[in-house]
């Protein structure tokens, strides 16, 4: 990292529009054209197994069609989100060799489709990341392992990866920062969704109190503590006559709303190669009420981060009553405003974004 302020690149992941794509309101081409036309880019992130039929197999004609579409619409491919499906066989997990082969196919797909980053997930161990480094390098694809709740930057599993990255010394190994690890409140739009499912205000107040207690305590030290917290949400639902909501409270309360503090990201900041601007809604004042978007942008700018931020709207799981498109536009406005307040700006021009992303990814860690 340098002393210069960062200029993050604005963008979006198509995951934000899951309900619209799933409902066949937009096909992939239609969605990409809408992203470009309405200014959610220039950064474009796509989940391989969500959007590309037959993934990770990508033939030349399809790759050509896709690259032409991205070029025509003036977008910049940032991250291809790939999956480590180590539980794909019913009776056993993938062996290390099988996993490397499984991931290699997806890394090749990223390169072929023009994505400079492949977002990988926590189920990949330090040994596997080390083994994948030369493959990533050979294809010019940076592997950015996502730090997602219930993990967080200073979690032992993440620090073990960071330490291995440092030993390996490859500029093609890094992290994706997911803002869901550093949430500051239980999302109000999810409370509204529970209200619409008949949950009482009294129960919801207890849910908020429980989450706030965990926030005060900070993130769970390990998986055992995570499990205890999950269980506490289930118990709360059962004690208040809504056992049917318990698992939902637990999944969201621990797996989406991570209670680490924003400065926890400093533990891995030099290795952050990509960002998921995870958020859940925009309130009547135009702000994100449960994700400290302004603080997160200020941190990235101050730390000299000039990679992409994919706005990742997760409220679609429960918010069936509002359009995701306006909500995402609202969150990106907050990002731009926060970058300006921090003395910098978000990059919204495609040519500038391409140049900045190239420089960001070529930069060796601690260079």
């Amino acid at each position, binding site marked *: 990292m340098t002393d210069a302020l960062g200029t993050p690149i604005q963008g979006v992941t198509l995951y934000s529009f899951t309900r619209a*794509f799933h*409902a066949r309101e937009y096909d992939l081409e239609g969605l990409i054209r809408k992203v470009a036309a309405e200014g959610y880019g220039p950064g474009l992130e796509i989940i391989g197994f*969500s959007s590309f039929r*037959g993934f990770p197999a990508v033939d030349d004609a399809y790759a050509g069609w896709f690259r032409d579409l991205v070029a025509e619409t003036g977008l910049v491919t940032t991250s291809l989100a790939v*999956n480590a499906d180590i539980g*794909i066989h019913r009776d056993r997990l993938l062996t290390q060799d099988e996993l490397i082969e499984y991931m290699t196919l997806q890394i090749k797909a990223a390169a072929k489709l023009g994505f400079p980053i492949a977002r990988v997930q926590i189920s990949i161990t330090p040994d596997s990341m080390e083994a994948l480094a030369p493959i990533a390098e050979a294809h010019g694809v940076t592997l950015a392992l996502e730090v997602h709740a219930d993990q967080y930057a200073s979690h032992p599993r993440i620090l073990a990866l960071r330490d291995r990255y440092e030993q390996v010394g490859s500029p093609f190994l890094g992290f994706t920062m997911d803002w869901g690890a550093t949430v500051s409140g239980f999302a109000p739009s999810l409370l509204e969704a529970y209200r619409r499912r008949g949950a009482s205000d009294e129960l919801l107040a207890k849910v908020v109190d429980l989450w706030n207690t965990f926030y005060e305590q900070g993130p769970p030290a390990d998986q055992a503590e995570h499990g205890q917290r999950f269980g506490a949400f289930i118990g709360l639902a059962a004690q208040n006559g809504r056992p049917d909501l318990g698992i939902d409270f637990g999944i969201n309360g621990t797996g989406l709303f991570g209670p680490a503090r924003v400065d926890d990201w400093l533990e891995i900041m030099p290795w952050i190669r990509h960002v998921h601007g995870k958020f859940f809604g925009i309130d009547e004042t135009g702000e994100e009420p449960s994700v400290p978007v302004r603080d997160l942008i200020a941190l990235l700018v101050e730390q000299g981060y000039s990679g992409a931020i994919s706005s990742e709207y997760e409220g679609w799981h429960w918010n069936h009553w509002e359009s995701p498109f306006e909500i995402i536009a609202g969150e990106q406005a907050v990002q731009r405003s926060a970058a300006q307040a921090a003395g910098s700006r978000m990059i919204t021009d495609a040519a500038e974004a391409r140049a900045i992303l190239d420089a960001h990814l070529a930069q060796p860690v601690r260079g």
Partner: protein
Amino acid sequence: MIPDRIIEQGTLTTDGARSAVEVRLPWYRALPGSCIAGAKLSIDGVEAPAESLRWQMNGREFGFDELVDETGEWWFPTDSAVLVGDLPLEPGDAEHQVDVDLKLFIPYIIIGDGETLHIEEHDRKTMKAGQR
């Protein structure tokens, strides 16, 4: 998760002895057949015998025991599969309550010691039965 879309409205069909409904993946990304761990189909509260159930996807038909090792065929998020089973029904204007339960493995989420996360989702819709 998108459990409210599992059953495709208006797709119930019957030949009198076997009945079928189109189902959608309640998840954001494609899953292989090996992750489709089971389903139940009930019409008007009567459940189709498990051994009679078949799963049609990508132009092929599977029993659930055949899906266990199926990593070549994938259920894409915008595709409908067809769940069919032994359930006597008369086509016509009568409304029928259709219930579908789905059990899916999420292959990238490992919980605990080598155990893959599974989700169980349910949907209920009411519709007429067409001729199959």
